[in-house]
């Protein structure tokens, strides 16, 4: 029955003349959109197309494994390479929806150091190749506050001292971490506290204090836009997005690094990707020393190769020195927390559900 139907429907499709045949030298690469995708297009895609002639289709998504899993389980994969967070890379690998990546295809550093030693520890995984270190911070519009300016994560939750709407990512991660740090938990203890029911209650209770002032965002491009439109006075955001709004559009935004939660972005290949081999080649090409350093000249995210760090220069358009704007710069890294992928892989469903229930109440 199914085959018969498939035949008929496909035939009618062919008759219409739109059967989309994917040609061999094409890649669909999915990333987070906006300034971040632009940095990848400039540093990875364009040189790769120039070198190999492979046409690259760039798609945007807003994170999570959902689409990848939907494609793999429904048996119709159209994405070749996806830029994901670490917890999703681990979880996807566990669930068998990602291809394993042979690390021997990754090029060595210019001085001959093999890739396995050149990548910072923890940035190469069975199914994933690391690209950058990024971080979630909060930023505010400097024109909105006369006198004292927000300077700690606690100020984000202080609506009495700094009135106005706040933008937050629509999801528990990393709002719960922010809430606990703002509530006085040391960065190092956040996940231990969050693993207990009381800790979760405490985090939600802290979020309750700003719930009425919260506007929720889903895509990384939204926070700078919401700040620019005056929809919010401060917002959590990916640091690179805010940097770009300041560097290239001269927006009056200021990043507060206190309590930043940093994470990795990695390439993964969905199981059964239509152009798997080409995707592997691209993953190797784009994560070489020069490409990662080039990307850092478009957006303030730190490369995961040790050999790239020395090559970071100025912003390609604004001419700003990039090094001090990286999440890992010493002056920014004081009270930083690494996103705990194991914690999130375990508690994602429960906390998502609870977050949704909390939001709907």
């Amino acid at each position, binding site marked *: 029955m199914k085959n018969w139907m498939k035949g008929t*429907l*496909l035939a009618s499709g062919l008759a219409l003349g*739109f059967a*989309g045949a994917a040609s061999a030298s094409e890649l669909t690469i999915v990333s987070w959109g906006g300034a971040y995708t632009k940095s990848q297009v400039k540093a990875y895609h364009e040189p790769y197309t120039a070198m190999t002639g492979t046409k690259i289709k760039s798609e945007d998504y807003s994170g999570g494994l959902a689409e990848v899993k939907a494609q793999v389980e*429904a048996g119709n994969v159209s994405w070749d390479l996806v830029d994901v967070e670490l917890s999703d890379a681990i979880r996807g690998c566990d669930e068998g929806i990602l291809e394993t990546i042979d690390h021997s295809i990754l090029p060595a550093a210019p001085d001959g150091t093999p890739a396995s030693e050149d990548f910072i520890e923890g940035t190469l995984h069975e199914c994933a190749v690391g690209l950058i270190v990024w971080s979630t911070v909060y930023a505010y519009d400097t024109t909105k506050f006369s006198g004292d300016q927000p300077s700690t994560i606690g100020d984000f939750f202080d609506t009495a001292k700094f009135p106005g709407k706040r933008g937050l990512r629509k999801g528990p991660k990393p709002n719960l971490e922010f809430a606990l740090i703002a509530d006085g938990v040391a960065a190092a203890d956040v996940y231990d506290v969050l693993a207990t029911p009381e800790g979760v209650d405490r985090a939600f209770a802290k979020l309750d204090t700003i719930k009425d002032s919260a506007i929720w965002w889903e895509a990384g491009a939204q926070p700078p836009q919401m700040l620019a439109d005056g929809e919010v006075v401060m917002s959590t955001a990916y640091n690179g997005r805010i940097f770009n709004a300041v560097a290239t559009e001269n927006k009056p935004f200021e990043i507060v690094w206190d309590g930043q939660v940093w994470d990795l972005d990695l390439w993964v290949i969905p199981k059964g990707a239509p152009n798997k081999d080409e995707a592997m080649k691209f993953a190797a090409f784009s994560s070489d020393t020069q490409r990662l350093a080039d990307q850092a000249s478009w957006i303030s995210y730190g490369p995961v190769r040790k050999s790239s760090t020395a090559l970071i220069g100025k912003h390609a358009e604004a001419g700003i020195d990039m090094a001090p704007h990286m999440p890992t710069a010493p002056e920014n890294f004081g009270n930083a927390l690494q996103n705990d992928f194991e914690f999130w892989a375990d508690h994602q469903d429960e906390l998502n559900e609870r977050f949704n229930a909390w939001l709907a109440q």
Partner: protein
Amino acid sequence: MSSLPPYASPLEIVWHYAFRVFCGAVLVFLIMPILVMIPLSFNAEPYFTYNSDMVALKPEAYSTRWYVDIFKNGMADPHQDFGFSFIADSWNNAQWIHSMKNSFIIGIFATIISTFLGTLAALGLTRAHMPYRKLITAILISPMIVPIIISAAGMFFFYSDIGLSQTFPGIILAHAALGTPFVVITVTATLSGFDNNLVRASASLGATPQRTFFKVIVPLIAPGVISGGLFAFITSFDEVVAVIFLTEFEQRTIPRQMWSGLREQISPTILAVATILVAISVLLLITLEVLRRRSERLRGMSPG
């Protein structure tokens, strides 16, 4: 109450004007948001508010840059001078142009399918001897009633199973299914006023059934078929949920592009696109009105 009778009491006079003010306010509520948006699409600044220069109608406060952006956004080389290669680049690479092409391709093919199948079905449904008419009509109209999220979710699984999701045929079939109820309804409505004596007269004058169909039936139901087709087209042209579930970048349509734009950043370009869509709606509205008048005239001519 259209005009106030001379014997109206003061209370009635107050009520009369209050009523009109209320109705006026409702009509303003309906039309205002659409009208307010149009001048803002010509804003020279990337904001969504009227600044003092715009209110003062200064020409420098207005610009067509967002309309130009529709053609430029996504081009390989947006800075080149206008010329043949600019047009070719825009036609092949600009994102909005890409979506616009897709919207028309999908809309037109879906409309052809749903108009053909819907008209045929309506002709059958209005036959006197159609069995289970009510039940079958209810089933055929269901795509209009079932919440779109349920339809789209169902189609997502099924079309993935048979390899049609993320293809043009898949989304065309989906939109055709969503558009057929409109054709069935409008053509049935036209046929319900149809005088069957005309067919009998034609037959008694010696016309073959085919000739009767093309010379008598078709001209009479044509306005209904065309307005049904327009409904089907606008349904596809405006549809976004099935597109979200069933397509990828390659088949992205205008509403899909607007959807991502609205969820990420509302650029004034979206307002420019929206203004163009309003213009298209106005054209459709005029076409439908002309068709309705034509249909009424034809009906008026037929006896009974």
